[in-house]
């Protein structure tokens, strides 16, 4: 049992390290370190421009989407090399948040279903950060129950015409392309009548309206489609097979490993060590210690769970199901950590301005962002269902709508 790299891994890590040391935008290092949770921002800097520049630089040197095949813009790296890159990129990884959906979900879906020509045309600029992609899945009537979506695509000559509405689309306002799941046949059961496409987000008939979030930012959007035309060549997978295509996308979303999701524990520990109370430092209080210990073991448990998965990758094996706990544990840990930190700040815990609030308002930012972690990409409850069903082998929930033609499913809205 060890944490050591194999000689090849060590050589690769060294190569990554030297390249990053020579090329990373160091002027932003400090700013990125203290940048708010869930919202990368740098004082007086256009974050999109900086992110794109860093991505292009990585691409030119062969470090963008390195696990993708070379012909699509990657370097054909192994899964473990990808992990090593992520570990070494460190704080600069925050500059990739703009591309996470494109690289993590849209790219792999294109790789699996697009034509060779499309892959060669679209994937390299996606890897290079030249193009931003978004994922147009969720709708007002289809979130956890994604297959309840209603945006319809109808055949028209050698193309399709799309009408409907998507919601919660992260980054749509910055996006050049998107992958879109639609209903092409409402007369068959819900999972059967879906079809996936990719499309140009500048197509006529698309209207994007940013949605203001709890934390005041507008990362996600409503996207309206009015007679938007998509060529049939941009269909991904067979007509009616959109559900299976979407599973490829979502599977990739859950596959990224990294080195354990952040919970905010190191920041909380720091804060408790430095906060003076009438009875000494906050960390001397037994009630504080007991809570801290629970957060500590959840955080280290995530870290070492990731290491177990990485060990499997290192041996060329597929990681076990242990990684499925990551977001479920991290989301609520971060939320509880934020609440505890605010409690320790007492009345001033309510302050939100980084100049006035303790710890540059880091915990307030966590408080206001963490609810999203528990919802996006599968809610806590859906993740528990997945663990219960796929890991523990318990029966699926009973579904009253599974075998019913979609247009006969009772809804409140019709």
């Amino acid at each position, binding site marked *: *049992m060890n944490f050591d790299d194999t000689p090849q891994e060590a050589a690769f890590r060294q190569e990554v390290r030297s390249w990053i040391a020579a090329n990373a935008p160091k002027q932003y290092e400090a700013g990125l370190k203290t940048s708010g949770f869930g919202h990368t921002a740098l004082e007086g800097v256009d974050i999109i421009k900086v992110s794109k520049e860093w991505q292009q630089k990585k691409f030119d040197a062969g470090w963008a989407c390195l696990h993708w095949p070379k012909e699509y813009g990657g370097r054909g790296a192994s899964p473990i090399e990808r992990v090593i890159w992520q570990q070494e990129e460190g704080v600069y990884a925050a500059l990739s948040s703009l591309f996470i959906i494109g690289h993590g979900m849209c790219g792999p879906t294109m790789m699996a279903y697009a034509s060779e020509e499309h892959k060669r045309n679209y994937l390299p600029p996606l890897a290079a950060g030249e193009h931003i992609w978004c994922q147009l899945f969720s709708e007002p009537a289809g979130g956890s129950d994604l297959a309840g979506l209603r945006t319809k695509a109808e055949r028209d000559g050698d193309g399709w015409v799309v009408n409907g509405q998507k919601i919660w689309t992260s980054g749509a306002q910055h996006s050049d392309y998107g992958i879109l799941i639609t209903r092409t046949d409402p007369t068959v059961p819900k999972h059967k009548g879906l079809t996936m496409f990719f499309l140009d987000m500048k197509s006529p008939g698309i209207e994007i309206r940013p949605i203001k979030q709890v934390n005041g930012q507008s990362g996600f959007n409503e996207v309206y489609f009015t007679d938007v035309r998509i060529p049939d060549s941009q269909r991904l997978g067979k007509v009616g097979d959109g559900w299976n295509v979407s599973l490829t996308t979502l599977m990739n979303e859950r596959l990224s490993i990294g080195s354990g999701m952040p919970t905010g524990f190191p920041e909380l520990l720091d804060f408790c060590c430095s906060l003076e109370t009438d009875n000494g430092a906050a960390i001397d209080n037994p009630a504080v210690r007991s809570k801290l210990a629970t957060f500590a073991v959840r955080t280290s448990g995530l870290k070492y769970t990731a290491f177990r998965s990485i060990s499997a990758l290192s041996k060329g094996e597929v990681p076990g199901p242990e990684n499925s706990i990551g977001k479920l544990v991290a989301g609520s840990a971060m939320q509880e950590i934020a609440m505890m930190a605010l409690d320790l700040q007492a009345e001033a815990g309510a302050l939100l301005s980084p100049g006035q609030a303790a710890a540059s308002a880091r915990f307030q930012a966590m408080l206001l962002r963490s609810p999203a972690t528990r919802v996006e990409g599968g809610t806590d409850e859906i993740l528990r269902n997945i663990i219960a069903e796929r890991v523990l082998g318990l029966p699926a929930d009973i579904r009253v709508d599974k075998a019913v033609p979609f247009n006969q499913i009772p809804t409140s809205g019709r």
Partner: protein
Amino acid sequence: MEFDFSADQKQLKDQARRFLEAKSSPKAVRAILEGPELYDGALWQGLAEMGFMGTAIPEEYGGLGASYLELCVIAEELGRAVAPVPFASSIFLAAEFLLAAGSEAQKQAYLPKLASGETVGCFALAEGVGAATPKHIQAKVAGGKLSGTKLPVLDGDVADFAIVAAKTGAGNDARSISLFIVDLKGAGVLRETVETIDPTRSQAKISFSGADAELLGVEGEGWSIIERVLDRAAVLTAFEQLGGADRALEMARDYALDRMAFGRPIGSFQAVKHMLADMYVSATLARSNCYYGAWALSTGSSELPEAAATARVSATQAYQHCAKNNIQVHGGMGFTWQFDCHLYYRRSNLLALSLGSLSTWEDKLIERLRAKNAA
């Protein structure tokens, strides 16, 4: 990175599981729960024949000299089988004390017999209600004679000898405590078995009145030796807890698939599914933290204090969580003497207290993280 047990270690684990499934079946555990025997002598004999007790004891003292990783996988299987034997007292504690602080003569005298299972050792620290801190300890040694009362002592009624923490100095601080080896069959020792929440692991009240006590390690350094040995024992015990947690989760899962209510398996109700998913989460966190502990223990890392407390807190939480919800999933059946759920419920709560309570370990963990943070 190879943050996992090796193929050989996994094979040893399978071997231990098969052996314990045969020899430490629920029926065998119940025989100790319900009968007059204090522990399962036949199982103890069998474990000795398998060479399990001597796993991590060096060859020159009659052991196999394997690594602590091998001992961790055995610990996990002992926990899974709720084995009713004094393995932890004798191997995780007594042997570790001797290895940590014993003179060459003491090691030669005791370790080979511990490795062969011929002799059983235990550790006597607590003296009634409350955390066993240096201030709390009243037992005293003067002129080589020990007086005082230890309660409870895990396996104190089974063991041949005890490592006893007693006062040798004035004052109440750590430097006032020293360790002694005491023959429990000698004069001046009165032992009585006490009733506890888990009768499958026997505990005793031991009264010493002028018993012969042989110093272990340097006088006045008892407390620091205790801290070091408890860290090692904490990792091993955490594996025992992990094995129990996993088994309790499996029992609950199997029952949820089998038991029907409202015309469907109870495992199809989300309240039950989500309870089981949460049990899986805590058992998975505990496993990963235990591996961290195993790594630190087996490599002699300076991170051991942090890793041990992490593994210990996480495994304690997971075992208690899984064992109590295992009963919940079983409904009324779970509360019967006849079903095995209570074996795990009892053991999880016993192990949460032995070596110091959860809150004690939470406290140690944070103290250690704070020191690291300050560095």
